[in-house]
């Protein structure tokens, strides 16, 4: 990238959730639902000594993308690590459910989810988990009609039950700042020991779960620069595509690949690329 291009670029990663949603929606169409003045704060955080936030860290914004009706669900990574509790989870699930209902009634609403999340908010444990199950259900329902596009821009990344949600999306967009994995590094180190996963070994972690590796191994679909214009153009292109077989339905392909891996050997980035790259679905 030239210096001029770099200077004219507007970082997407540095934006908050509300501003990100604005960037993706067609100018003048952004309309926030269940917003900070609707009195929907977490009923569980205050009693545990955590100050709640008026939007519970999730923005629901309706509008259009490239002229198509769309809803953008943006998680605020700066609030409680983007963790999902009852209210934030219900905002995402409920909006996806309404988008699916739109489609059944003739309005082809698409959805875009901006993942910036560590997964379940442990202070709301089972209600976060249940909300994430609802989100999974709603993605699988909606993506039968119209694309559900996931974006992992960074820098929180996408972990826990929401990494499963990312795996259910019709298409997944990542940047170099993205990380995607089920379990956070600290939890793996706690559970499996430092020899298995050293949470301070950043090169190792990025080599396995970073956006560059996920795109090289077919576990994501588009790799974009941290640039609002580029991300917006990529999302606009993807929401216009007809539904196709999602990655999460490719069990036969992945079982066949795993059968060729000998787990006696510890995994590294090259081994995953050798097994997963090349013959994409």
């Amino acid at each position, binding site marked *: 990238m030239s210096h001029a291009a770099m200077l004219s670029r507007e970082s997407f990663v540095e934006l908050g959730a509300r501003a990100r949603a604005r960037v993706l929606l067609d100018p003048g169409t952004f309309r926030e639902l269940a917003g900070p003045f609707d009195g929907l704060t977490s009923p569980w955080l205050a009693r545990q000594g955590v100050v709640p936030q008026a939007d519970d860290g999730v923005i629901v914004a309706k509008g259009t993308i490239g002229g198509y009706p769309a809803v953008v669900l943006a998680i605020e990574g700066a609030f409680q690590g983007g963790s999902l509790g009852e209210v934030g989870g219900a905002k995402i699930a409920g909006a996806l459910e309404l988008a699916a209902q739109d489609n059944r009634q003739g309005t082809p609403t698409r959805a875009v989810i901006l993942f910036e999340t560590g997964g379940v908010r*442990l202070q709301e444990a089972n209600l976060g988990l*249940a909300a994430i*199950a609802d989100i999974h259900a709603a993605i699988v329902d909606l993506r039968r009609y119209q694309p559900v596009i996931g974006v992992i821009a960074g820098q929180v990344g996408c972990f826990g039950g929401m990494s*499963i949600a990312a795996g259910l999306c019709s298409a997944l967009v990542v940047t170099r700042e993205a990380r995607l994995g089920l379990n956070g590094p600290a939890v793996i180190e706690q559970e499996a020991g430092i020899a298995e996963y050293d949470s301070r070994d950043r090169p190792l972690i990025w080599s396995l779960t970073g956006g560059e590796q996920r795109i090289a191994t077919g576990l994501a679909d588009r790799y974009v620069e941290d640039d609002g214009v580029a991300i917006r153009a990529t999302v606009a292109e993807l929401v216009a595509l007809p539904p196709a077989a999602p990655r999460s339905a490719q069990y036969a392909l992945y*079982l066949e690949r795993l059968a060729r891996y000998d787990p006696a050997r510890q995994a590294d980035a090259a081994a995953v690329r050798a097994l997963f790259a090349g013959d994409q679905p």
Partner: protein
Amino acid sequence: MNAETGIETTARGEAWLAALSNGAPRLDGYPASVQVADAELAGRPVRWIAVVPDVASPFPRARHGEVGLREGWSLARAVHDAVLADRDAPAKRAIIAVVDTPSQAYGRREEAFGIHQSLAGAADAYATARLAGHAVIALLVGKAMSGAFLAHGYQANRILALADPGVQVHAMGKEAAARITMRSVEDLEAFAATVPPMAYDIDNYATLGLLWRRVPVAHADAPGAGDLATVRTALEAALADIDADPHRDLRGRLGGENRQASARVREVLARQWQG
């Protein structure tokens, strides 16, 4: 308790699957940790599925009943195969997930090869089966933890649980949560007792409205004839309830006394949706 790792393994999943499927043979072609059997319940075809410990698994982080890379994709296959086989059948078989899973697998191999995608495969399959008209039931007989439960059970039309202290639902296993939050297990339990969604026990979980029914049994570890009859009756009632329900989504979970905000958020969204 496994002496080497300190991880508790139980045989509940296997015991209940074997008993409920009348000892039907396990289907071939699955790893030993994913048991699949076809057997009738009250004259209706059912595919029974459980994830069980396999101490000889080549994946060292998935030997105690965890849902790992192979387990997730194999669950997907077991469910999708039933959906494909019944595609043109007038009556689609029920799919019953027998759930006793301590956690998802935590390991380097797992993250490297995309365990999140494997679990997405399983969740996709169960949700797809439900939307295709299969009755999908989760029967919790032991632990139903975190990502493992999301992959195996949480997409069911109805969730049933044995009313037993060994049945636990949570976002993180108790031992791991205690280590991560630097509390003792006892402290964690005392704290969880005051915040219902933080609790592990099935009675607190029931206040969230996510369970369709709790089923009392005498011996959750080794079901006897009486327990089996009780559980079968409950499963048949769940099938009848699903049959009578015009909806194939998860809205039946929104009535819990301790899950009222989930319903309120949806009301606000619906009111504002059309602008």
